[in-house]
Structure formats: structure tokens, C-alpha cells
């Protein structure tokens, strides 16, 4: 860990001003906001993040969870994962988000972790987290050690020849299936970004992960009025708790009898970003609930999978995960 300056603004405007001095809002940012600190402080201790200035945003008024006039829900960026997971409206209308959050990390971490921080948590790629090794995401242009190395946990969808890191979040998979939008305030004002436009594919610039610019503060995440009455989050991993997903699936759907009227499918643990599968949705949309259809949806979702040396099993595992999640989601009342 290196020496840094620490400031505690009390207004969003002050935070934006401090943040705007950064050269970038992506890897190697010299100014960083800190919320729960469960990603950032870890990476600072590992010398993977080396900000010169830390801006503690915990005093900003961004922790509320409120319903919108249209029947949606606005979750403040500082709302803790534990509080969101237990919120009555989330439990009633967006259960998939609660399930996803509760499948992640540990109770202690969820008490600290925030909605905004979770959106920006970093990959668990072992080479990214150890400065001894080459990593394009950490040090642009240095090479990717994971390709041909230990990549069992890494992505099979959305990869590039420069990076195959998986996005490890559970929350963001559920938010993707719920078609959440992200409210950002920055030096150029406010904007709302649909979650599916928020994350970048690695391509040749894996150090750029989101569309955020210096000074951008995530103030909230908005969930549209509930569209599905059925939903499910399924997370598969080696052990029963406290582990990142090998594969996960979030399903939100509405049935009319046996017919699928509305469906959103997102996957975790397999993509370089939270992975919305329009392909699977296309197969499912308008069809009746049937194993055969679920299987075809899973095939479609993984059609473009490009496994690395150790994670080929994820192709089959992700398919089974998706099929089981669809079975459970369509079965729940």
C-alpha cells in the first residue's frame, strides 16, 4: 500500500470536483472514491490500485431505498448489500436481486459492501491481483498471463486475445436481468445509463471496464416496475458458500399459463461482463415451458463460448445452470 491523501466530502458536488482531477476513472486512476472499501482497500494492499487520493463518499446522501412514482425502486449507491437484500420491496418484487446478493461474499462483507461499489468490483483473476505477473488489465500492454495459465475461474464469453477476466459479481447479474439503469452525476451533469450499456467488453483495452469518466459518481440504481412475476438466481460453485460463481444465472419472466410472455436471461461467472443473453431470450420468448426449449435456450446462450485451457467445463456447467434456473423460475409461484 502506498501513501495517499484522504478526504471526506459531504456533498455530491464536492465529490465530483475531487474526482474530476483524476486522469482516468479506470485502472491506474490516481483518485478513487471509496465506499465499503471491500474491493478497493484489498487491491490497494496488493499494490494493484495505487491512488494518490482517496475520496470517502460515505457522508454523501446516497443510502436510501425508495419506490418511484411509476412503481419502480431507486436504490441509493451507498445502500449496503445486506440492507438491499432484506428490503421488503426487493423481497416482494425483485427477489432475484435478493437471492443474488445473499449468494455473494459473507454476511460481514455484505454489511460493508455498497450497491455502487458492487457495480465496480474488479475481476478475481489471480494474475490481475499479483503485481509480479504481466496483466493487460492492470498494466496495459504488458500481456495476459491468464491465457495459458491458471484460468479455471475466468470467462468463456466476451473474451479477447488480450483479456479473459470474468466479472465476478452476483448483484450485477440480477440487475442485468432486471434491466436496471444507473444514475450518474459528473462534471457534465446527470445521466442515466442502462446497465447493459455500462460495461465494456475487454477488446484491446481491458483496463477500461465501464463508461465512467473522471468525477462520475454513481448516485443510484433504478429498477423499473416489476415485469416478471417469477424470477430466480442460481449460483454454482465448488463449495456451498463464500465463493465466487463458476457459473450463475438470473431469470426474470412472466408466464401466461404455460406460455412465456416476457423473459430476461443474464449469466454470471462466464462473461467478461455481467452477461445478458439475448440469444436465450429469443429462443424462450413466446414459447411454452418445456425442458426441450430450455435446453435450446442454453445452447443458444453458450453458442459463442470460447473457453481457455482450464475452463472448458464451464460451457456445459453454464448450460445446466441456465436450464435449472429456468426450471426453478417457471415452477415458483
Amino acid at each position, binding site marked *: *500500500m*502506498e501513501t495517499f491523501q484522504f478526504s471526506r466530502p459531504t456533498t455530491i458536488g464536492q465529490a465530483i470536483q475531487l474526482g474530476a482531477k483524476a486522469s482516468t476513472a479506470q485502472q491506474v486512476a490516481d483518485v478513487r472514491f471509496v465506499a465499503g472499501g471491500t474491493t478497493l482497500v484489498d487491491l490497494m494492499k496488493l*499494490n494493484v490500485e495505487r491512488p494518490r487520493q482517496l475520496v470517502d463518499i460515505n457522508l454523501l446522501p446516497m443510502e436510501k431505498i425508495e419506490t418511484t412514482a411509476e412503481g419502480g425502486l431507486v436504490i441509493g449507491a451507498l445502500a449496503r448489500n445486506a440492507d438491499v437484500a432484506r428490503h421488503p420491496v426487493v423481497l416482494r418484487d425483485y427477489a432475484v436481486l435478493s437471492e443474488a446478493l445473499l449468494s455473494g461474499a459473507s454476511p460481514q462483507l455484505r454489511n460493508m459492501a455498497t450497491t455502487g461499489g458492487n457495480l465496480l468490483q474488479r475481476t*478475481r483473476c*489471480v494474475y490481475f*491481483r*499479483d503485481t*509480479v*505477473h504481466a496483466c493487460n488489465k492492470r498494466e496495459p500492454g504488458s500481456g495476459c498471463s491468464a491465457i*495459458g*495459465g*491458471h484460468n479455471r*475461474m475466468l470467462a468463456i464469453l466476451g473474451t479477447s486475445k488480450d483479456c479473459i477476466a470474468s466479472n465476478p459479481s452476483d448483484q450485477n447479474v440480477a440487475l442485468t436481468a432486471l434491466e436496471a439503469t444507473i444514475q450518474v452525476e459528473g462534471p457534465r451533469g446527470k445521466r442515466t445509463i442502462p446497465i447493459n450499456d455500462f460495461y465494456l467488453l475487454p477488446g484491446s483495452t481491458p483496463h477500461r471496464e465501464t463508461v465512467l469518466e473522471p468525477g462520475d459518481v454513481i448516485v443510484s440504481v433504478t429498477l423499473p416496475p416489476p415485469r416478471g412475476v417469477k424470477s430466480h438466481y*442460481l449460483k*454454482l460453485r*465448488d*463449495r*456451498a*458458500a*463464500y*465463493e*465466487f460463481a*463458476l457459473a450463475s444465472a438470473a431469470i426474470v419472466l412472466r408466464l401466461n399459463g404455460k406460455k412465456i410472455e416476457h423473459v430476461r436471461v443474464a449469466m454470471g461467472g462466464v462473461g467478461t461482463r455481467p452477461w445478458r443473453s439475448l440469444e436465450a431470450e429469443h429462443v424462450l420468448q413466446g414459447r411454452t415451458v418445456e*425442458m426441450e426449449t*430450455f435446453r435450446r435456450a442454453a445452447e443458444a446462450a453458450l453458442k459463442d463460448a470460447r473457453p481457455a485451457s482450464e475452463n472448458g*467445463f464451464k460451457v*456445459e*456447467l453454464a448450460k*445446466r*445452470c441456465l*436450464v*435449472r434456473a429456468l*426450471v426453478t423460475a417457471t415452477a415458483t409461484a
Partner: protein
Amino acid sequence: MMFREFVEFIKSDEGPAPSAQQREAASPSKVIGAALPRIDGPLKTTGKALYASDYNFPNMTYCVPVRATIASGKILRIDSSAAAKMPGVLLVLHHGNIMPLYRNASGGRNSENRPPFEDDTIYYWGQYVAAVVAETFEQAQAAAAAVRVDYDSQRFNVSTVLEDSLPAEGQPGGPRLLSHRGDPDAAFAAAAVKVDETYTTPVETHNPMEMHATVAVWDGEKYTLYESSQGVMNHQTVMAQVLGEPKENVEVISRFIGSGFGGKLFPWTHSAIAAAAARKLNRPVKFTLNRKMMFANVGHRPRTQQRLRLGATAEGKLVALRHDYRNHTSLGDDIRENCGEATPFLYSTANLAVTSALVRRNVGTPTPMRGPGAVPGLFALESAMDELAIKLKKDPVALRLSLDTLEDEEKKKPFSSRHLKECLQVGAEKFGWSRRTPEVGSMRKGDVILGWGVACASWGASRGASEASVSLRSDGTVRVSSGTQDIGTGTYTVMAQVVSDKTGVPIDKIEVILGSSNLPPGPTSGGSTATATIMPSVVDAVNAATKILMTVATTTKGSPFNGKDASKLMLMDGCVCEKGASSPVPFQEILKAANVGSADGRGRSGGLGADPKARDYSTHSFGAQFVEIEWDPGIARVRVSRVVSVIDGGRILNKRTATNQIAGAVVMGIGMGLLEETIYDPRNGHPINDNYADYIVPTIADTPDIDVHFLDIPDPIMGEYGIRGIGEIGLAGIAPAITAAVYHATGIRVRDLPVRIEDLLAHTGPSTKRA
């Protein structure tokens, strides 16, 4: 270290012959066997128990190592100029400026023979190449990151395939014949039913909660080392030699240990680095390892590759057994993982051979991990037995029962106390084994398939020489002390129980002092031998102290026993009384009346080797372990749902701490079976999953219903109380029982641990249709 080696190790410490013990075990009081909570529990839960790195002294400095980023080669240059100028930096140590550190040749056991910074050679990734000492931990860490090291990197080998060509059997470097009887090869060739399979176990890393640490204090003449050590006496013996000091100039203190699992049995290089830095700076130095260092610098269970050949008659008589294994070791040290520990005697067979070979890899030096040798060895042997049972179409419990023997066919001696049969029978009963249907995938519970597996467990029983001292004090308390340590297993508590049993003084009036090399020499906490080793000395010390007390009682004016025959007096319920007479007097009253502060006794006991009776017997513990797994083929998920362990481990002193040992070992076995493997990146030799997120161990959510049952039969050869040991055996059968259960559920036989989702995905079981 193999168990046998461990016995050699404790024998080498054997002191004078036993003085006055070995009396027949009197029937023990209620306190023996009671499920008492740990007496040190409150200290731990309130944070008052001081672990090595909790010691703080004025002027403390902090040491952080610089670690090699190659697996083999030479250091060309160490540039510490930038680091030396950084704030707070006091010292950068490396091979160019370290004080002389020596190899040990005169007893004791070190982990790495090579002292730290001996030369410019790199043998494994992560090896310490320099160490920065600074005023604060943060300063030392920042400066360590600023030390530049140039290397000449050379070829290295971290391959997991241990097929290296080796010299022939018996030649130097070739396989060693460890055990042989009959003609195993001919018998195997002629056998009607055969199993010939190779099993592998991966590198496993010790992951105690408390990482290693040394706080070294140099007072101008003597070192005091605060350590996390499983053996303060051995640590002193070794470090005195490494530092070139007489033994009395090195004191080792280890009051509380956040567990060790074998990884803390022998000193590691950080201890010498901290001591050398303390001497050079003339200030206390704290060196704490981080989790990454745990994976490279302080040992591991070595990788094993084991070929098992079993030959049987069609009726199931075992006619041939061959166990040929290899394990990897480091470049500098020959660490033989004794996979054949239980093979020669577990089952009856006339024809048998066990061979062992070492294969060198650029890894840190391996070290014992809970049940060294036996645990990976039994994974192979018990897996092969399961495969044999299937080939014979015999029930795996029935097959094992039919091969039971009460004679150690290797040593041609009876077992002192072997109840493997009862373990299997009681376990089968508790588990409900008779309801098992043998066909693969034939048992269900709701939507999941159940798999049931069984395996036998075994671990040697021995005890070494030890000493202890006991003081009966005039305030009514009793103090017992020995230079052993409690690594979390309950040594403090069981020692108090034994003193209470022998004196009748209640537990809360007994003070137990452990964890300093200045105390009477006590045992290393290893090989499941510490309890059996120390208790005869504790009893002897109680007797010696009681004798003093009786002398005081019979020679003090005003004592009600003045002038009486001391041999007619006894200590009962904390009181001195005369046989056949009433009016007992609390022992402290006698001492107070005589103005004697305490009656002190020193106790000694020889090891098993010093007991002529023991030579006629083979001493081992046994067990049977039953595992149920739940298999959900739709999502390729395996979870252990139920475990029954029945242990024949001699007399149990404390049900609670003993159960904790077995249950904890079961959880560790789940890790071994399903989760744990240290992976070395073949491109650079880095143990790449060197953290708690990527090297996964079971969580509470992975912990099933665990039923622990002890036969609780005293071993007549193991001395006072008939104690054996229960620290390791609980792990021995779990992994093979898991893979047997996995086979029973899925039809997939996993011979390379751990069982992974990858192995099971091939399965499309009957319920895949329903997903």
C-alpha cells in the same frame, strides 16, 4: 515426517528410564473422560490469550521479506539502495550481509536444512532472498517492494506428473523397498480378481487460522523467540544450532497456537531471519508471514502418485498387495511421505510389498500435514479396496471385516488393542449401512441421488520421553507445567483433568503452564503422541509432590499426622487422610501449618521404547468412517451430507476436545476430498492460488451432520490411562469414503484428488431429464 520417523524423532529425545510409574491404571475418577470445556477458552474468547505476533515490546521493529520471483537460478544482484533510503528503514538483510547461520547436525529437526540466505541460489518460487527491517510494518512492506533483485533464471520443474525416470530399486535415488513378505508379484499374477490402479493426491497447504510469526528479542546475551510452534523444545534445540549459541541462550515461547496441522512442528527460516535481525539491530523484531507466504515458505503436504495392486481369490481372500508410491520433495531436503504407513498391517495378506521413491521439484520443502503418509496412503489403499469389493460383488464393509486380523503380519506381533471390526460394526449400525443398495445411482432422497461410501482409518500410537513438574501450593491450588504446548487441541485442559483425577483438587484450582523451553522438557505436539507422552510424567510428578507433602505432614509439629507412617497416608479429594481413619485435612492446611509454600515434584517417563512390555506388541489406532453424499446431476453438484466416524483411539480423556479433533478432521477431509489443491504455475513455479479465495477450504455451509463415536477402550500397553492419540486419525478415511460415495452415486471413480465438477460433468444421470 512418516509416523515411524516421528517415533525415531521422539525416541532421540528419550531421557533416563522411568522412575516410579507404570503402576496399573487405577480406575479413573469422573473427571477422566468428562466433556469439559477448554480451561483456556475464556482467555481465547476475550482476546487475552497471547499468540506469537501479539507480543509487543518497546522499540519493536518489523521485518518483511523479499521473495524470489523465479523457481530456480542465481541472484545476480540485489539493489537495496532505494529501499535503504526510504522512511524508517533500518536494515536490508541478504546473503551478502547476514551473520553466520548454521545447519544443525546435533539433534532436533529443522524444516529446511539450508539456513536462510546461505548463498545466492534459488531453489523455489517465493524463497526469501532479502528481508527489510523498519520502524513500522508499513514502512518495511513498502521498502521490501522497492528492493530490486536481478536473477539468472534457470530451468526448473514443478510438474505434477511424477513419472521421472529413476535408478532401479535399491540404487541411490531409486525406489526403496519398505516392506516385503511372501511373493506379491507371483501371487498377483495368479490372482482370480485384480485391481491395478494409480491414485494421486495433490499438494495441500497447511492453512491454520494463525499464520506463522516470530518475535525475536536479543538482550545482548540471549535470544527469546516468541513463536507459533508445535514444539518449543525442538525449536530451541534447532535454533541454538542455527544461531551458533549454547542452548541456554535461546528461550522459545509459544503459549497459544492458532493451530498448526504439522506445519509448525519444526522451525522455518523466518525464525532465524528475525533472530539475526534482532541481534544486528539490538532491538526486538517482529516477522509475521502473510497468507501468500504460507503457500511457499512453510511447507506443504507433498504430491503423491501411488500404484496399488490388489489380488484376491474369487471368494475375496486377499492374496497379494503391492503399494508402490512416489512423492515429490524439494531440491534440498528428502521428505518421504510414508504412504505405506498402514498398508503392511491393515488387512491380512500373505504376499505384500511397499516401495517408495522421491522425485525432486522446485518447490519449498514439504513437511508433515495431519496424518502425514497415512492420509494420502489410505486414500489409495482404501480406494483400491472399494474397487476390489465392487469387482468381487461384495459389500465393502463385509469385505473389510473378512480381512481383519488381530496380528500385525508385518511385525509378527499381536496388536496391543485393535478393534477395527467393532469400528466397522458400530459405524455400520449408526449409519444405517444395511439399507444401502449397491447399484450405482440406486439411492434417492427427494430430487437428489445419494452415494454411500466407507473407508477404514489407521494411525500409529506411540509415546516418547517427557518431564513435568507439579506443585501443591499452600493457597490450595496446584500448578503443573511442562515444555510442551497446546496447539488448540486441549492439552491445557486434559493436563488439568489428570492432575484433578490424581489429587482430587477441582479443575478451577489447577493452573497449567505450557509453552516455554525453560520448563521441564515436554513433547512436541505431533504424531498424535503429545497426550500419551506427557501424562505418565504428570502422574509421576503428582506422586513426587504428594510424597513431599506426606513428609511435611508426618514431620511437622502440630500436624494431625505428625509422627505417622507416611506410607499410610494418601491424598484424596484434595485432602490428606490416613487409610482407614476419618478426619481428612485439606492439603493446603498441612502446608500452611508448616509454613511451606509448596510441595514440588518433578516427574519423568521414558517412551514406549523404554517399556520392555511394549516390545511384544504393535500399537496403532483404528477407525471406520462412513460418508453420505448428495448428488444433483442436473447441476453437477456434490455435497457431503452425513458422516459417521467410529474411532478406536484408546481411552478418551475429554469427550468434548476429542470429538472436536475428529469432527475437525472430518471437515478437513471434505476439503481434501472435494476442494483443496495447491497449483504451481508451470511457466514460473509460483503456487498461483496462494490465497483463501483461490485455495478453497470447506466453510460451515459445507459441514455436514457429523457423528463421532469413540470405542473408548484403554490400550493396556500405552501406560497410565491407556491413552493413544486422536489428533490425526479422523482425517484418514474421509477422502476415500467420499470418492467411494461419489462412485456409488455417479458411477464415476475419481482417482486423482480432489473430486471436481470437471470430473463429474461427464455424468448424465437418470435425473438429468428432469434437470
